[in-house]
C-alpha cells in the first residue's frame, strides 16, 4: 500500500480551532513601539523600580545591542523587527489590585474561559495561581495562606518592592544578563512574572501555578520567574500559557531561574499552549525561552517536566547545573509539532559535583509538516567523580511530510563518569490505527491513545490535574493530522 493513500498520511491538518484564540477587549497602557534606552527606562519607571534594577536592565540592554540572533538551532525564523514591537502593555485598571474584587471583570472572565479558577474555589484543587496578563501580574490567589507559612509567592514586581534583598541576591545568578541573545533582551525589558521563596525545611503544601496570557496585539511578553528553595524545602510549580489567535507572529522571550539549596527540591512543570499559527503556518507565537536551574547544595534536586504543544516556533532548553555533590537533575519533555510548527528543544545537564545524576526523557511528536529537534548537552566536568547520566530520546512521526531530528552533545572530562544515550524513531502505523478502530475506537481516539501511550513516561511525571489537561491537549494538538 502506498503511503499516499494511507490514513495516516491524509493530512487535512485543519485544526478544529484553537480554543484560546479569543481577544479580550480592555483598555491597556502600552509603551510606544520600539526599543532603546528610553523604552527600558519607561518600563522601569512604570514599575517604580529602584535604581539598581534600572542599571541592571540598562547593562543587559547594552550587552544585547552587541549580540546577534542565534542561528545554530534547526529553525527557520522570519526576521524579527525588534523596533516594531511593543515592550510593555498593561491592562489599565489592573495596576496592583489589592484583592480579586478589584481585578477588571473582563480579565477575570478571560481566565474563566481559559478554565483557570482564580477565585478561592481553587482551594478545591489545592492550587495557588498567579496570573500574568500581557505584561503584569493581575492576581495572586492564596497569598495569605502561603504567607502565614512564610512562603513568598507573588508577582515579580511585588517581590522587587517587598523583598529586594532576595531578588537582588538571586536575580541573574543562574541566567546572567548576557547569557544569550533572548535572555539579554528579557533582562532589559522584562515586565513581570512570578517570584517564589520557600524557607528552610518547609514543604510547600500546594502546587503553585502561574498562567501566562498574551492579549494585546504586536506585543512581546517577557516575563521573568525566579524560584528559590532554601535548604531542605520542597516546591512544585506549574506554568500554563495561552495567547489569542493573530495573523502576525508575536514574541515571547521568558527567563526562568531556579535555585535549589542543600537538600531542597524544585519540581517545575509547564504546559505550553501558545497559539501555534494556522494550518498554513501563518501567525503564532515565537517562543524563545531560557530556563535554567542550579542545584547549589548537596543532594539538591531539580526536575523539569514540559509539555510543549503550542507556539509557531519553540526554542527552549530547560537545564540543570549540578553543583552540589549528589545533586540530581531531571528533564521530561513532550513536544508536538503539527502543521508548520517548529520546535528545537532539549536540555543541558552540567555535572560539576561528585556523584551527580541526571535523567533525560524526551518524546518528540511530529505531524503535518512539523519539524521537531531534540538538542541536548550532557557535560561531565573534571570534578564530577562518578557522575551519571541516562538519556532517552524517542521520536514519533505521523504522516510523511514531517521531520524528527536528534542532536545530542556529550562532553566528558572525567573518566569515572558514565553517560548513556538511547534514541528511537517510530511512525504511527496504519496497522496500529486499524487495530484500535477494529475494537470500536474512533480514529481520533485511537490516535490520542497511541500518542498518550508514547508519552506515558513523561506524562506520569506531571501533577495529576495537569496530566489530565495535558492528555486532552495532546489530542487537540493533533486534530486533523489523520484523515
Amino acid at each position, binding site marked *: *500500500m*502506498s503511503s499516499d*493513500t*494511507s*490514513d495516516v498520511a491524509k493530512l487535512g491538518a485543519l485544526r478544529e480551532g484553537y480554543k484560546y484564540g479569543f481577544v479580550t477587549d480592555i483598555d491597556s497602557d502600552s509603551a510606544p513601539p520600539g526599543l532603546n534606552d528610553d523604552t527600558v527606562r519607561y518600563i522601569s519607571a512604570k514599575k517604580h523600580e529602584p535604581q539598581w534594577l534600572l542599571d541592571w536592565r540598562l547593562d543587559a540592554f547594552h550587552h544585547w545591542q552587541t549580540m546577534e540572533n542565534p542561528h545554530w538551532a534547526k529553525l527557520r525564523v522570519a526576521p524579527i523587527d525588534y523596533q516594531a514591537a511593543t515592550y510593555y502593555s498593561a491592562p489599565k485598571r489592573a495596576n496592583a489590585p489589592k484583592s480579586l474584587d478589584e481585578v477588571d471583570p473582563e480579565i477575570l472572565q478571560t481566565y474563566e474561559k481559559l478554565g483557570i479558577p482564580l477565585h478561592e474555589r481553587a482551594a478545591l484543587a489545592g492550587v495557588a495561581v498567579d496570573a500574568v496578563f500581557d505584561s503584569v501580574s493581575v492576581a495572586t490567589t492564596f497569598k495569605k495562606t502561603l504567607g502565614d507559612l512564610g512562603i513568598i509567592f507573588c508577582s515579580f514586581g511585588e517581590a522587587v518592592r517587598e523583598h529586594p534583598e532576595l531578588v537582588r541576591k538571586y536575580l541573574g545568578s543562574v541566567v546572567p544578563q548576557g547569557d544569550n541573545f533572548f535572555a539579554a533582551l528579557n533582562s532589559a525589558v522584562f515586565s513581570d512574572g512570578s517570584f517564589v521563596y520557600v524557607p528552610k525545611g518547609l514543604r510547600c503544601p500546594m502546587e503553585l501555578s502561574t498562567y501566562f496570557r498574551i492579549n494585546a496585539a504586536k506585543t512581546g511578553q517577557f516575563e521573568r520567574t525566579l524560584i528559590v528553595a532554601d535548604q531542605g524545602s520542597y516546591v512544585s510549580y506549574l506554568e500554563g500559557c495561552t495567547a489569542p489567535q493573530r495573523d502576525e507572529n508575536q514574541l515571547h522571550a521568558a527567563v526562568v531561574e531556579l535555585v535549589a539549596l542543600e537538600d531542597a527540591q524544585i519540581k517545575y512543570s509547564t504546559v505550553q499552549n501558545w497559539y501555534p499559527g494556522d494550518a498554513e503556518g501563518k501567525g503564532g507565537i515565537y517562543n524563545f525561552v531560557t530556563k535554567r536551574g542550579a542545584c547549589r547544595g548537596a543532594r539538591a534536586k531539580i526536575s523539569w517536566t514540559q509539555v510543549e504543544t503550542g507556539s509557531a516556533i519553540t526554542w527552549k532548553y530547560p537545564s540543570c547545573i549540578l553543583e552540589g555533590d549528589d545533586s540530581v537533575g531531571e528533564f521530561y519533555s513532550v513536544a508536538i509539532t503539527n502543521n508548520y510548527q517548529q520546535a528545537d528543544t532539549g536540555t543541558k545537564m552540567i555535572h560539576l559535583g561528585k556523584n551527580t545524576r541526571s535523567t533525560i526523557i524526551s518524546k518528540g511528536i511530529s505531524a503535518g509538516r512539523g519539524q521537531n529537534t531534540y538538542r541536548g548537552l550532557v557535560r561531565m566536568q573534571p570534578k564530577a567523580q562518578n557522575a551519571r547520566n541516562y538519556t532517552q530520546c524517542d521520536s514519533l512521526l505521523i504522516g510523511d511530510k514531517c521531520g524528527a531530528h536528534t542532536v545530542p552533545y556529550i562532553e566528558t572530562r572525567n573518566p569515572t563518569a558514565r553517560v548513556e544515550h538511547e534514541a528511537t524513531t517510530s511512525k504511527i*502505523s*496504519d*496497522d*496500529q490505527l*486499524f*487495530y*484500535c*478502530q*477494529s*475494537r*470500536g*475506537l*474512533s*480514529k481520533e*481516539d*485511537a490516535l490520542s*491513545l*497511541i500518542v*498518550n*501511550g*508514547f*508519552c*506515558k*513516561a513523561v506524562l506520569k511525571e506531571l501533577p495529576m490535574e495537569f496530566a489530565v489537561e495535558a492528555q486532552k491537549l495532546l489530542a487537540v494538538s493533533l486534530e486533523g493530522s489523520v484523515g
Partner: protein
Amino acid sequence: MLEIKNLHARIADGREILKGVDLEVKAGAVHAIMGPNGSGKSTLAGVLTGKPGYEVTQGQVLYQGSDLLALAPDARARAGVFLAFQYPVEIPGVNNMYFLRAALNATRKQRGEPELDAGQFLKAVRAKLKLLEIGEDLLQRGVNVGFSGGEKKRNEIFQMAMLEPKLAILDETDSGLDIDALQTVAKGINALRGPERAVLLITHYQRLLEHVVPDRIHVLAGGRIVKSGGKELAAELEKTGYAAFGDAA
C-alpha cells in the same frame, strides 16, 4: 447475519484478490473458510472489517440486513463485528486493560448502555481471564508488547470474550499455537457460540476444527469459494490437500 454477494476486491497495486465471493452465514452458525496460502482468506477478513488498502470493485456485503461496507471500521466494530488478528500489533505504553476498557465502553455507549467503571470492569475481566487461563499480569502490560505468539492469540480471544461481538471473524487464530494454547483458544470460541452470534473461522489447517466443530466449511481458492460442505470436508481436505483446487494452490 452476514450475506456476501459476488464480492470483488483488489489491492493498491491493482491486483484483484477476491473474484466473486458468495457466502451466507446465519445467526447461531459457525462457518470455516479454508484454503491455500494466497487464496484471499485474509483479504476477505480485511474487507469485511474495513482494513485500509483494499478496494471493493463489485458486489455487496449485508450485515444484519444493511450495507456493511458503507461503515467505517470503528462503526463496524461497535455494531458487533470483531476481527481476531493473525498478527496483532503492539501499542507501546498503552496498558492492555485500559485499552480493553476504552474499547468496551465505546461499544456500550453505541448500544446506549452505561459505561463500566473500573470496579465493574475488573469483575467482568476476572471471570473471562479464568476461562481463558490468562494471568492478570498480562492486563498490566502494554497492548501486545513483548507478548509471545501464544499470548497474543489468547489476548485476541480474551478481547473477543469481553466485547461479545455478534459476528466474530478469526483470522488464522490457530497458527503458531501449541496444543494446550489451541485448546484454550477453542474453549474461548466455543463459549461465545450461541443462537445470537455467528463465527467465521479462517484457517489453513483443519486441527482447530477438531476443537471448534463448524456447521459449514468452505474452500476459498483463487479468490472464489470453490467448494462448500459439512464438517466432514475438513478431513477430506486433510487427505487430498488443496492441490485439487487448481493453480491458486
